């Protein structure tokens, strides 16, 4: 059947199994929105109108983080696209599968500085996995097929498809390609057996190993495999900020999070290890601190589907390129064989004892100080009340670190945050995406007063669609992390980090028709939280917390892990 490009786009989405689209209309995408209103129901696609394009990208990202499915965003040309760039860069840094459709001026106007024209493929080249400008309507369906394939395979990432307005107007026979073969793109999923053998040999011999799990374990869904590997070899296991939940926090082998705000025992274990087994992590600077002193006595096993990640930051002794799930399966099989062949697992009793001693020496801590609400307590209460089972979407800053440290994620894909890019404003719209994707799960956005004010317009979105996101606002009237650094590293000079001039958030929510609660004292936290979480629909909960609380431990930027500040 002949149909216009706009309809072809939607039919293609249906073929890809897309059910939810986050978007914002504009001139260049009017044909698409026109087809959407005519055919959404039969196509089974629900469109969520956000209140700023960035939120459509964050929504799609939250959707992807909460499910592993490819998130879809649709925005218009020019400013629509440029507003989306932060969200695209975020997905790129955190390797989230996403396809972004942007409008473009008609092909005959491209390059003419037309109204709402921006070179979106040019602008996003360095923050997309790949991008396309569709110049012929017959390329439209194959391009969409390719975009979804590229976004969701290998190391996932955002793919942008730029759609000139005439491409959505022209008519052509629709047929969606069933298969795809991109000659220049063949991700290597199976690990080289020799490399796997050597890596397993090293694991058996290690006396002070640490298993170090990154976001790649989520991307590959390697949860069961990683757990088996840890248990079979009795490996102390730490997760990166992006890896949290890939290994249960309550597991006896769990060390919690490592890095800049990692536990003392965790960082000490990593730093004193003789073998660091990295699965889908990338030795980010927030993890390693000063590279030259990072685990200097350790050999490194590095499993990653992106070969360019291996030996990028630290020289790797045992590289294995491949999909985390498949490679760890290969490792488990190899392990069986080597054990059957008479190899023994080195004893780690004294290593576990040592780590336990470190943990006893300097556990995570915070202290009650009268009536004032301690933010850490809020997170602990959130964990208690939700039984650790909520989908928690965090914004960026101190509250993000407290949540990462204290919520204790036992379940995969329940922890959403902007780890790589650190984009303030992520938490709330990402929670919207998660709530759309997982309507049966409680979705909580833990946000600060800084980040929330970047995206509070999305209150209208949650109201419009009655999306039951619970916004837990940790309000200290500061850009907390900036203030902490200014206190610790800039002699208390609080330069432009004080944001105590702010709206009455309860009244604000009320004006959007969103239920709101507030607690200002420690003894109000529990029941306020419980009441709010049990209120149907979208809810805002404001916690007026201690203004100058710090996140500990902290490894100062550029310092070695061992030089972390504990209090």
């Amino acid at each position, binding site marked *: 059947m002949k149909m216009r490009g706009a309809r072809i786009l939607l039919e293609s989405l249906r073929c890809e199994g897309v059910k939810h689209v986050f978007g914002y209309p504009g001139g260049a995408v009017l044909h698409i929105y026109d087809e959407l209103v005519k055919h959404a129901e039969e196509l089974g696609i629900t469109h969520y109108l956000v209140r700023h394009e960035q939120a459509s990208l964050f929504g799609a990202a939250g959707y992807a983080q909460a499910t592993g499915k490819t998130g879809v965003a649709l925005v218009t040309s020019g400013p629509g696209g440029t507003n989306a760039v932060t969200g695209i860069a975020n997905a790129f840094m955190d390797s989230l599968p996403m396809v972004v459709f942007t409008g473009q001026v008609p092909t005959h106007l491209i390059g003419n500085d037309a109204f709402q024209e921006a070179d979106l493929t040019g602008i996003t080249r360095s923050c997309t996995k790949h991008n396309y400008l569709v110049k012929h309507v017959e390329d439209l369906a194959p391009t969409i097929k390719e975009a979804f394939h590229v976004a969701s395979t290998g190391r996932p990432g955002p793919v942008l498809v730029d759609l000139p307005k005439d491409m959505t107007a022209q008519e052509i026979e629709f047929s969606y390609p069933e298969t795809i073969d991109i000659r*220049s793109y063949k991700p290597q999923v199976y690990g080289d057996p020799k490399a796997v053998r050597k890596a397993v040999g090293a694991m058996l011999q290690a006396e002070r190993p640490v298993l170090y799990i990154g976001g790649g374990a989520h991307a590959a869904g390697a949860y069961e495999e990683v757990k088996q590997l840890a248990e079979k070899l009795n490996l102390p296991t730490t997760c990166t900020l992006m890896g949290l939940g890939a290994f249960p926090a309550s597991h006896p082998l769990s060390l919690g999070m490592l890095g800049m705000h990692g536990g003392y025992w965790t960082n000490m274990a990593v730093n004193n290890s003789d073998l660091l087994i990295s699965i889908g992590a990338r030795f980010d600077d927030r993890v390693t601190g000063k590279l030259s002193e990072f685990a200097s006595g350790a050999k490194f096993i590095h499993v990653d589907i992106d*070969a*360019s990640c291996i030996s990028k930051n630290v020289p790797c002794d045992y590289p294995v390129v491949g999909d985390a799930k498949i490679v760890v399966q290969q490792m488990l099989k190899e392990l069986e064989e080597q054990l059957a062949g008479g190899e023994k697992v080195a004893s780690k009793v004294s290593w576990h004892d040592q780590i336990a001693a470190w943990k006893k020496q300097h556990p995570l801590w915070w202290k009650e100080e009268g009536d004032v609400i301690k933010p850490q307590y809020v997170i602990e209460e959130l964990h208690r009340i939700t039984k650790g089972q909520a989908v928690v979407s965090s914004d960026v800053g101190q509250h993000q670190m407290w949540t990462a440290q204290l919520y204790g994620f036992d379940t995969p894909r329940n922890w959403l945050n902007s780890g790589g890019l650190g984009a303030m404003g992520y938490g709330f719209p990402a929670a919207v995406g998660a709530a759309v994707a997982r309507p049966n799960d409680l979705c909580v956005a833990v946000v600060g007063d800084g980040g929330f004010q970047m995206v509070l317009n999305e209150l209208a979105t949650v109201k419009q669609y009655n999306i039951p996101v619970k916004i837990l606002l940790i309000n200290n009237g500061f850009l907390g992390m900036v203030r902490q650094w200014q206190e610790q590293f800039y002699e208390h000079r609080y330069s432009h980090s004080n944001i105590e001039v702010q709206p009455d958030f309860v009244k604000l929510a009320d004006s959007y028709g969103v239920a709101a609660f507030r607690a200002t004292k420690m003894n109000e936290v529990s029941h306020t939280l419980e009441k709010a979480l049990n209120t149907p629909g979208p809810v805002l909960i404001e916690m007026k917390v201690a203004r100058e609380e710090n996140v500990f431990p902290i490894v100062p930027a550029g310092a070695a892990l061992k030089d972390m500040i504990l209090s």
Partner: protein
Amino acid sequence: MRHTISLLVENEYGMLTRVAGLFSARGYQIDTLNVAPTLEEGVSRMTLTTHGNDHVIQQILQQSHKIIKVIDVVDMTIVPHVEREMVMLTVNAQQGEQRQEVLSLVEIFRAKVVDVNTDSFILEMTGNAEKVNAFIELLKPIGITDIVRTGPVAMTRVAHVKAQRLKDEDEEFSELTLNEKV
């Protein structure tokens, strides 16, 4: 160390910027760059020279390989190969001794005179970078008024084609490309 890197790419819109953009975004240097079609329609060969330590070169290879429409990446420097570039120069060639001197250099370097004027020549010469440099140095005292170089192109010697394919599915892949070089 200087490396000559050969990329086989889909000749799609924006391909050059994808490669060049990668280099600028990650702080690598492109010293020379050459792009031209291959026998296969829609596929181009990019030959570029760059410099850096082994770690940087390894990253350049891996990061370029990651560009979706790059079909193949080869570090020509570490495989037996032939490398050539072309230079065109306008040189002073006044009647008499100077003219003779230029012509004898043309002879020695197997260059060609491609344009003649009363007081200048345009010369064309191909060779590897060292030869081109030597030719230029010898012509400098005589007076070069204009110069254009293509930058090197390179071709693997046939018997060794298999050696270091980044996109090879050979099981030695990870060891060859990652272990030995790092």
